């Protein structure tokens, strides 16, 4: 097992550390990251959905319990939510390691539109990796950020379908540069 989850016993939510570890381990395999050592620290005292990655070995991932939560049954674990929310940050991290994203600002410097566009490329890839996702949720988020237009929908379809987007594509989608 290359994934370690803390806390080992949850008190605020009905999560099981071993189940979470298995789900993230499976995700790593789907994303071609098998063998990566991960320390997943779940802040069970918050329902927020934020997930933050800290470089190192093991890779440290901090997640609010809301990121792993089944919104249908509050305070219970959702393997799908975990794979989508952890998967997005893992793919963004992997993108950053390539030259195509060398010009990308750090996460704190991303605009909401840029983050939404980047998420589209990540979730599209997660879908192709076999993770259950609902595409329209991400389409709606992108529309909220860059406009409810046919042009936005065309951008969405393009970003969703690609496996090798660049920072230039993300920025262009948000109108920051002219393609």
């Amino acid at each position: 097992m290359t994934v370690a989850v803390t806390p080992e016993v949850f008190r605020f939510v009905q999560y099981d550390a071993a189940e979470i570890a298995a789900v993230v381990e499976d995700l790593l395999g789907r994303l071609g990251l098998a063998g990566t050592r991960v320390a997943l620290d779940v802040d069970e005292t918050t329902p927020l959905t934020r997930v933050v990655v800290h470089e190192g070995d093991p890779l440290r991932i901090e997640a609010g319990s809301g990121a792993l939560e089944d919104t249908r049954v509050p305070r219970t674990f959702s393997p799908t939510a975990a794979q989508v929310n952890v998967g997005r940050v893992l793919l963004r991290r992997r993108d950053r390691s390539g030259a195509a994203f060398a010009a990308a600002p750090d996460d704190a410097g991303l605009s909401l539109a840029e983050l939404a566009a980047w998420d589209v490329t990540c979730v599209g890839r997660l879908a192709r990796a076999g993770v259950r996702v609902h595409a329209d949720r991400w389409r709606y988020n992108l529309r909220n950020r860059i406009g409810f237009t046919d042009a936005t929908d065309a951008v969405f379809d393009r970003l969703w379908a690609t496996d090798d987007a660049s920072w230039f594509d993300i920025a262009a989608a948000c109108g920051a540069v002219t393609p």
Partner: protein
Amino acid sequence: MRRHLPASELARDERFHTITMRDRMADPRAGRGRFEGDNGRRSNRLTPDLPSASEAARSMMHGIFVGEIQALEGAGRTCFDFDDIPFALKLDMARQAWDEARHVEISVKLSAWMGTEIGQFAENTVLFEAACSADPVMRLAGVNRALEGLAIDVFTTMKAFGELAGDPFLEFCEDWMLADEVTHVKMGSDWLRRLTESDPQRRAAALEFQSVVDKLFSYGGTRSDSDESMIGLARRFRELAGFTDDEISHIADVSDEALSEAKARKQAVRAGAGA
């Protein structure tokens, strides 16, 4: 057919998971946590510039959807549960049930438009619980004035959200549903006054019940005049719905109180965690 159905026996298929207000209040996570909210933003009002805006809007839209189902069930029940109420009141409740059924359909389509599946969020049955009183006057106070009053606030917030985001469907649909809610509140206010005309004690009890429900709907400071609340108090539409200035001020006070209590709870939890 059985009369006076409890919330626990509402008909729902396997897509739905219902929770009670008690379940919601029992979540020990509120006010804790290492992470700050939306980047320490001062206003919590639901607007598109909120980092979590899309998710919050989707969740709220689903809340509206299940609220409409329960409002339909509540109005329908009031039609059926009582033999001794004026027939014209039954007709008004039947008209409201028809409106709510249309709102359910609109909400389903809006939810799909926003990328939400039916049942994706837990359903809090507190709205229907306000419609379970054995006294029809209490139902008018709890449902038509408190619940539908909240709907006015929620729809106004969502309509503004759609307008700011440039979402033509959300803005349009919320505006149309808002118009119906104003009518529902007005019906409730009119009937409450008529049915309690010669019974000031019953009227006082109903208004007190409304106040309790108003506070429950403001739980956690979700709705108030303050920007710290996600939902604002739609004063103008409440006026149109027949609320007096004093009544609106009272709801504002009750909501502020709920917000202050929520902040105090959060502070106490944080102090406890830091100790």
